[in-house]
């Protein structure tokens, strides 16, 4: 009996040791988890962390894409293996109205609901313009339109033209008599489809799509724009006389200065 128990314990230790070493090596292999951070996912993709967890790498989205724009990452190309991605300069997302890629996803890693409006009778109505694959960013130093040369390739290519990209005329101060017609991206409407990146005429695209969390800043809640309805509401919702009570604030400031000063 004693011998059996000892043998059992030893085998448990052996198994545990092997599992510990194996687990360490294994998790080392998985360490490239964040490598996909700059990867652009098909429309309807959940936030990267959740997407990676839910995607079973089945390729149904890639097979469903009529333009063959969605590819599956292979080992060695620096993206999480087997997950779907888009390279906009080669094949932008064509924004199909029926969103076949998201509809094909069996696990919900691509979530149809996130690219739909509420439809009649509690159903959903697909709306591909709600897709937020990424956000187009312009490098004004290499964009020839900002040099004063006329180019509106990205503006014309944009499927949400005049909303996601507009052209803003400003004075060309170098010549003093011409206009610069510079493209401007609006994050409120940009789907990140990448048609602009594909259309850009410079050698390496001067407008390109980045995942939103990398392309956007955040002002923080305490900066309020009094001219925006939403922000003004926030000001109004502040309680009449906000009071923070700390041991020190129990006394009036005047008392504090008079009685506790040096």
């Amino acid at each position, binding site marked *: 009996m004693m011998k059996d128990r000892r043998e059992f314990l030893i085998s448990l230790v052996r*198994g545990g040791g*092997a*599992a510990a070493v*194996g*687990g360490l090596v*294994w*998790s080392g*292999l*998985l360490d490239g*988890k964040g490598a996909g951070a700059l990867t652009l996912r098909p429309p309807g993709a959940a936030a990267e*962390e*959740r997407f*990676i*967890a*839910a995607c*079973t*790498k*089945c*390729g*149904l989205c*890639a*097979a469903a894409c009529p333009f063959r724009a969605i*590819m*599956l*990452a*292979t*080992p*060695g*190309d620096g993206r*999480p*293996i*087997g997950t779907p991605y888009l390279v906009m300069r080669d094949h932008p997302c064509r924004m199909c109205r029926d969103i076949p890629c998201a509809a*094909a*996803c*069996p*696990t*919900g890693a691509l979530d149809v609901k996130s690219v739909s409006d509420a439809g009649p009778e509690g159903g959903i109505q697909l709306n591909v313009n709600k897709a937020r694959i990424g956000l187009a960013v312009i490098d004004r130093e290499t964009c020839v339109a900002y040099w004063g040369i006329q180019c509106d390739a990205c503006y014309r290519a944009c499927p949400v033209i005049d909303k996601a990209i507009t052209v803003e005329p400003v004075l060309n101060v170098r010549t003093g008599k011409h206009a610069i017609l510079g493209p401007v991206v609006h994050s409120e409407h940009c789907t990140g489809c990448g048609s602009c990146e594909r259309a850009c005429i410079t050698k390496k695209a001067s407008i390109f799509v980045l995942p939103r969390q990398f392309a956007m800043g955040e002002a923080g809640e305490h900066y309020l724009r009094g001219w925006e309805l939403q922000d003004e509401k926030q000001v109004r919702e502040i309680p009449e006389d906000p009071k923070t009570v700390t041991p020190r604030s129990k006394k009036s400031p005047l008392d504090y200065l008079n009685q506790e000063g040096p």
Partner: protein
Amino acid sequence: MAPIIRNRFLLLRRTVQASVLLLFVAGNAFGWKVLQGNLSSSRLLDSVPLADPYALLQVLFTGTAVATDALIGGTVVLLVFAVAGGRTFCAWVCPMNMVTDLAERLRDAGGIDRRLPAMTLTRQTRYWVLGLGLVLSAVLGIAAFERISPISMLHRGVIFGMGAGWTLIAAVFLFDLAVVRQGFCGHLCPLGGFYAVVGRAGLVRVRHREEQCSRCMRCRDVCPEPQVLPLIGKESGFITSGECTNCGKCIEVCPDDALLFGMRMPGTPTGEHKGG
């Protein structure tokens, strides 16, 4: 016996494996609707969802909710192999089987087991890997085995493009060829371990007829999991271990007709062999 009869299950298995693979390839390349996706999850005839239940389990262990389609798919596959004998997947569907069978054949041709001292690994390892895969999925928040699985790598690679994935397949091939016999499929693969657990209740099983057996033990020589054959020459009954892959090699090699496929009906006397 004509070679085609002698190798009937081998030919049938290769046909099934190749057909499944080709249907998946055609599903992606030509839009055939028979099988679309890959072994991780797919659609059969554009209507029935299918999913790898172990992959799904890993996703669930990451704490991610999964859409109903995948859950239904996983259940369908689980039920199919619960009836067909879990590891029937390994011998009849899994593409890695072709790779590791080739490695084993070359291992025999090269006489590696005669020339080199044996390297062993307990066959229980796969159950540790199975559990470890789930633990790592929960800790790291990604389906851990799916990320490095040579099965998915090969299958997805053939359908959607391989990249550097062939290196992993080559590594498994070399491991099986020169290190441990049946090293991957028979010792390490957690999916095989998972299906071995599922297959315990399998209905399609190899049956042994002791009264016909001449105890030549050729079945044990060809069996990729010889520990499942403890009853050979001792008693009649079904091979009950879930680790049996239903590959039929033992049936093909038996000169006495002492082995055959049968249906094990739940509730009927199985001649279950204790121990082993």
